């Protein structure tokens, strides 16, 4: 039985490490490469912590398995256990070394956090001209863009453009959105972009990110907001800035189409306007 139980405890670290190594093959790792600059830095920080944690984990488990193996053999060998109340130097070592490592980890993280959240570090141009306002609501994302050529104002303007669950942003440049909620708390979470920010009732919270590649990214809600929490599915579309402008123009045409200007589709109305 001694061998069996030692193997049970030894299996924990082995299976844990193996499952993490092979996790990626089964889609159990990050949903993809981070698609933002900050996201890449976040991933790097994750991998840095991962190395430290893995080494500690393996080391501690090796220690644990070794001592239980030795201690459970004592019964057969005979003799008393080691009468020892502790080793002072060991206590000092295993207090100071982890303290330094933990301090290093936390100080090393500060930079990315400052870039992401501290107002003075926001990219100036993006902060001056937020792309859109995202208003969360049970259970959808309402998006308000300023009309082409105008800036987003805190108060809605008559010519603002609205969509639901579909946020378009220009690619390859820092963009800022204003996040708010009309009812309960929600959280704007785009896994591929490694962006998450709660929307707090009564507050307007700016978030910025810099999407690196064209594409559609899933937008989900990460804070319990009621029975339909799970279905707040939206998407973030990153596209070249010209396409983004064209999208806004198209939206504007659709929105201001009064049904009589042209009997054909809004596209024609749009071309007429141009």
């Amino acid at each position, binding site marked *: 039985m001694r061998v069996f139980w030692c193997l049970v405890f030894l299996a924990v670290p082995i299976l844990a490490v193996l499952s993490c190594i092979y996790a990626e093959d089964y889609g159990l790792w*990050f949903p993809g490469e981070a698609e933002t600059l900050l996201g890449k830095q976040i991933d790097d920080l994750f991998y840095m912590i991962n190395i430290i944690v893995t080494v500690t*984990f393996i080391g501690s488990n090796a220690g644990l398995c070794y001592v239980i193996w030795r*201690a459970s053999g004592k019964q057969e060998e005979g003799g008393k256990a080691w009468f020892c109340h502790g080793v002072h130097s060991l206590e000092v070592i295993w207090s100071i070394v982890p303290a330094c490592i933990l301090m290093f980890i*936390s100080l090393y993280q500060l930079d990315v956090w400052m870039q992401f959240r501290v107002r003075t570090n926001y990219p100036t141009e993006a902060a001056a001209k937020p792309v859109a306002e995202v208003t969360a609501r049970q259970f959808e994302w309402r998006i308000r863009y300023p009309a082409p050529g105008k800036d987003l104002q805190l108060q809605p303007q008559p010519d603002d453009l609205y969509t639901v669950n579909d946020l378009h942003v220009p690619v390859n440049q820092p963009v800022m959105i204003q996040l708010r909620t009309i009812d*309960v708390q929600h959280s704007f979470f785009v896994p591929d972009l490694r*962006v998450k920010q709660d929307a707090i009732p009564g507050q307007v919270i700016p978030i910025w990110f810099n999407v690196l590649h064209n594409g559609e990214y899933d937008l989900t809600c990460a804070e*319990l907001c009621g029975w339909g929490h799970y279905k707040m599915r939206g998407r973030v579309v990153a596209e070249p800035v010209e396409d983004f402008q064209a999208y806004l123009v198209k939206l504007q045409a659709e929105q201001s189409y009064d049904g009589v200007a042209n009997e054909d589709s809004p596209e024609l109305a749009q071309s007429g306007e141009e």
Partner: protein
Amino acid sequence: MSTLNPALEHAHDHGHGDHHELTFVQKYIFSTDHKIIGIQFLITTLLMLLVGGALALGVRWQLAFPWQSMPILGQFFYGAQGGQIAPETYTMLFTMHATVMIFLVIIPVLAGAFGNFLIPLMIGADDMAFPTLNMLSYWFMWPAIFFFFLSFVFGGGQAGWTSYPVLSAVVEAAPGSGHAQTCWLMGVTFVGVSSMMGSVNYMTTIINMRAPGMTLFRMPLTIWAMFITAILQAFALPVLTAAGFMLLTDRTLGTTFFVPSGLVINNSDPTVGGGQPLLWQHLFWFYSHPAVYIMLLPAMGMTSDMLACMSRKPIFGYKPMVLSMATIAGLGFIVWGHHMFTSGMNPALGMTFMISTMMIALPSAVKVFNWIGTIWGGRITFNTVTLNCVAFVSMFLIGGLSGIYMAAVPVDIYFHDTYMIVAHFHYVLFGATLFGVFGAIQFWYPKMFGRLMSEKLGKIHFFLTFLGFNGAFFPMHLLGMAGFPRRYADPYVHPYLEHLVPVNQFITISAIVMGSAQILLLFNFCYSYFCGEKIGRNPWGGNGLEWFAPSPPGHGNFDVLPVVYRGPYEYSSPLVTDRDYLMQTDYLPPPDSESKDETDEQKT
């Protein structure tokens, strides 16, 4: 040192078996005897463990087989929905699962059951300082259970156990949650009152009623843990109670502590307001983070005692162990913000909370190293107690280390509210605390009932639980890596989560194995009461005062007033040759020089 020592008088009163005539009700129901109260707490919490586990299995069913009707039970519980779990039912299930497990299982099983049972026995007192208050602390659990049950009947809390406003404050936000959420808040308040009474009692008892010779640094680590936990409760709980009342008045009297103006919820009229939802988060976590340690420290203390006894070896680094528990408690008060990294609070706060959170990993690490040190060079047999204790250390390692990812703010941006968090706290609360509790039940059961629990059943229970637990919760880390959010009734509407169904099915099967294994524990508990091997005072060769008392101890605990000569961890001491333990009460007369050495040893 102990100025107040009723043990003296009572030892005489009850020494010769001339008990007061107590009726059955006085003796076993409205009992003021700490042992009976402890056992009442234990049985109540074990039953609640089954309730909480059943709720969790409901959650797991939905995640593994979304919208499929639950076999047998589905028709019974959700007949109106064709056996399906509706999304609001799902929300209720995980809310009530967390509520039951935290407020009715883990906190009361540690402080209520083991705190009550062990504190007077381990410090050599005849009972708690305030026996009636102690009785009330148990009976205040029942209004809490009643209100939680009522909340369940009304549709259940709909805002998670964290109950963030505005969802929890405005009735329109969660249709049907009107009375349910209010009852939920009442339940939390009663649990708080119950814990508060316990905590005042524990502090007073530990400070005032220690046996002669039981200095602070001769107390077992369990007592230190209970003492520190009681302090945490006394200082943190009022904040939650106050916040709970504020939320209650928001719901019922129309105040707006947590509701800002202008919200339009479910097309209702815009709210009047001026409140701040973040205030709730600060107040709630100011209690609930220390509460995490309330749910862990006693288990750490008990595991330390059990590990030392099972390794037949003094605890490695007694003072560092005490200090690290005190540090955890102290730092525990200034880390609550790490639950709110993505909440939009001042980013400078995020940085400070990250540093304090990282630093709280340090005393935890010191404790793990000391536990490993305790086994090092020891002499263990793999009985159920040892297995559970080693599992405690092994699981706490995983739970503690995964915390580091979340403590780092930038990385937490991604992991916040994903299954990584779920994995992390289950590894700490189940992996560490509950394995500690399972060990403790096995270890102190003989003292409670005078019989040993079945080893065979205990080992099977341990193995199945350990297997099921790791199968259920380790893959959750990986779900978290894949960005799987918490509290989703149907995550698979999101394309990037579709491929995770098989993993969730695996988790659910493991959870069912783990859940079913708990029936073995209950069976063992009942079976051993009647058929367990009868044993004497000290079945494990322990050193503590509780092993000096008869099993089970009578009213007043000790037949002879204990006098303490040394710390509780003198296992394998060279001072005695015929056995490998030296009880705290054993008086060794040999020359002065030797007894001096002994006190020196205790100081190191």
